[in-house]
């Protein structure tokens, strides 16, 4: 008895390892996805070790170095590699600390909308009936508003701050997870293995979370990467409109908002924060494309 249990554990671990190996095989075939993964890992490292890597404090204002151009330009100083902003703060240091903001925003928003979306989607797909109808109509209502507009209005209600912005963005991203989970649950619910689990006495919670959910994860993972990049873009847009992170936070969108009036005089204060947003979002989207290809059985050419 103990023996069979042991072999079962081994084989499921082996199976998992084999699935991972297979996943990596398809993922690594996509060169862009691997590049995206490397850039993303580098960003995580930069964010975690920001205090070690950054040459200056992100808030320190060097009064003798206002709007210094990047080091390689005439008038640039090697102490400020990417130049300084209008109050003499080192742009490179602010960008490095800004990575913390963006990655945290992505993680927080995605976690919030993913867990909320899965819960609501499971309930809608499992119970159907009027519960389902009410939930789906509610999601339709949220989807009727452009995400940025809804976020803007919610922030107008709750007051401009990064936390409120993140909650608002999570709310606007949630319906996609609800729809995906619901559709997957409805497709899986009638399968034989679910019926077998039900007959052997599994309760609704076990059925929902242990039996059905693990088989719906592929589209959710892909959607989660999309949400991650969308959250970063939307939060930066809110910051740019003055409705997200508030100055002097070194959030990339907020930095762009502060730099707007200098665009024709000092291109570097505008260029680098935006470039940082673009590179981050691009890396995540590249990974997302790779994940979609690796997880979608239709794309596999075995």
């Amino acid at each position, binding site marked *: 008895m103990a023996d069979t249990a042991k072999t079962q554990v081994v084989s499921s671990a082996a199976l998992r390892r084999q699935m991972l190996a297979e996943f990596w095989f398809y993922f690594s075939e996509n060169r*862009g996805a691997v590049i995206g993964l490397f850039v993303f890992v580098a960003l995580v490292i930069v964010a975690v070790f920001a205090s070690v890597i950054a040459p200056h404090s992100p808030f320190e204002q060097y009064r003798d170095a206002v709007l210094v151009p990047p080091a390689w330009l005439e008038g640039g100083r090697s102490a400020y590699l990417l130049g300084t902003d209008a109050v003499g703060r080192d742009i490179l240091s602010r960008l490095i600390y800004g990575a913390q903001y963006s990655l945290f925003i992505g993680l927080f928003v995605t976690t919030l909308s993913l867990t909320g979306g899965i819960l609501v989607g499971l309930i809608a797909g499992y119970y159907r009936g009027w519960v389902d109808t009410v939930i789906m*109509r*509610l999601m*339709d*209502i949220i989807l*009727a*508003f*452009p*995400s*940025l*507009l809804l976020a*803007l*209005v919610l*922030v*107008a*209600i709750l007051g401009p701050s990064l936390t409120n912005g993140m909650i608002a963005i999570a709310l606007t991203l949630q319906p996609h997870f609800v729809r995906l989970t619901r559709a997957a649950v409805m497709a899986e619910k009638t399968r034989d293995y679910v019926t077998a689990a039900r007959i052997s006495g599994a309760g609704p919670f076990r059925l929902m979370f242990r039996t059905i959910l693990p088989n719906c994860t592929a589209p959710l993972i892909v959607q989660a990467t999309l949400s991650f*990049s969308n959250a970063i*873009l939307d939060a*930066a*847009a809110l910051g*740019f*409109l*003055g*409705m997200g992170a508030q100055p002097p936070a070194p959030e990339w*969108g907020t930095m*762009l908002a502060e730099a*707007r009036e200098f*665009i*024709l005089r000092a*291109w570097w204060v*505008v*260029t680098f*924060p*935006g*470039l940082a*947003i*673009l590179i981050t*979002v*691009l890396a995540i*989207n*590249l990974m997302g*494309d790779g994940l979609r290809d690796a997880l979608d059985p239709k794309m596999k050419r075995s």
Partner: protein
Amino acid sequence: MFGFLLRRLAVLIPTFIGVSIIAFAFIRLLPGDPVALLSGERVMSPERHAQISAQLGLDRPMVIQYFDYLGGVLTGDFGSSIVSKTPILKQFLALFPATVELSLCAIVIAVVIGIPAGVIAAIKRGSAIDQSMMGVALVGYSMPIFWWGLLLIILFSGILQWTPVSGRISLMYFFKPVTGFMLIDSLISGQKGAFASAVSHLILPSIVLATIPLAVIARQTRSAMLEVLSEDYIRTARAKGLSPFRVVSLHALRNAMIPVITTIGLQIGVMLAGAILTETIFSWPGIGKWMVDSVFRRDYPVIQGGLLLIAGIIMVVNLIVDLLYGLVNPRIRH
């Protein structure tokens, strides 16, 4: 088809009621006194407070207030701005053409470039052309458009001095709006250079607003074409000896367009969100900038009305897209 229309409307009506409840509840959810928020008067005597409260109907039960509000909305009464005291619908109608003009130009750019790009990428799958076009599309898709707009301003308005930085037309020209579309109005006015000025003001905002829809349409067209090109009837068409152009344009593209139409429709919501940023950057006097300005001015009745109007427009556009989809793809009607 008629049954399909009825079914779609049956879904639309509860959604609209929900949206109107959200817009109605919005003012009541705000921290602070709705009487002060809706009248814009910060300090008032208790008598004045009671008078305004009665005047705005805020002393009555919530349910009656809601039906009052809904009744007003259905007859075109969205209330008035606190700041300018003008009716919200009037403001909206004055600004809406500017946003429509901008969005139409953007969607034309996105479709005219995006669909051919997607088709070429699909035909030349795996080639350098395909890879570079899809690379560019992914960059466009990941673009923070507010930054993209600023970059274009630096290049074309700052360094090259080709285009103006903001507005819809040079201050030199003045004429009465006939259609609300600056391109048409400037032509009608017959003033020399007016049309050119309108075009030069429109071009950068259109490019910025078109960026993300263009990338999405190109990617969607490519994947739809790839799917269709592997179908048996395409092989049959090729085997019959039809020219590659005929196969692609007549057999493949037609069927590949079905999902692309939905994608284009879905971009309308994306565009209205994009208009918020684009219009702010270029000081384009449309509804996106109107909403942002109202949020800053704490003009709550305008935010409320704008929210409802924009959601209503998106819902109507989505309905039209759904109906078009049903028209080109009869399978979906059931």
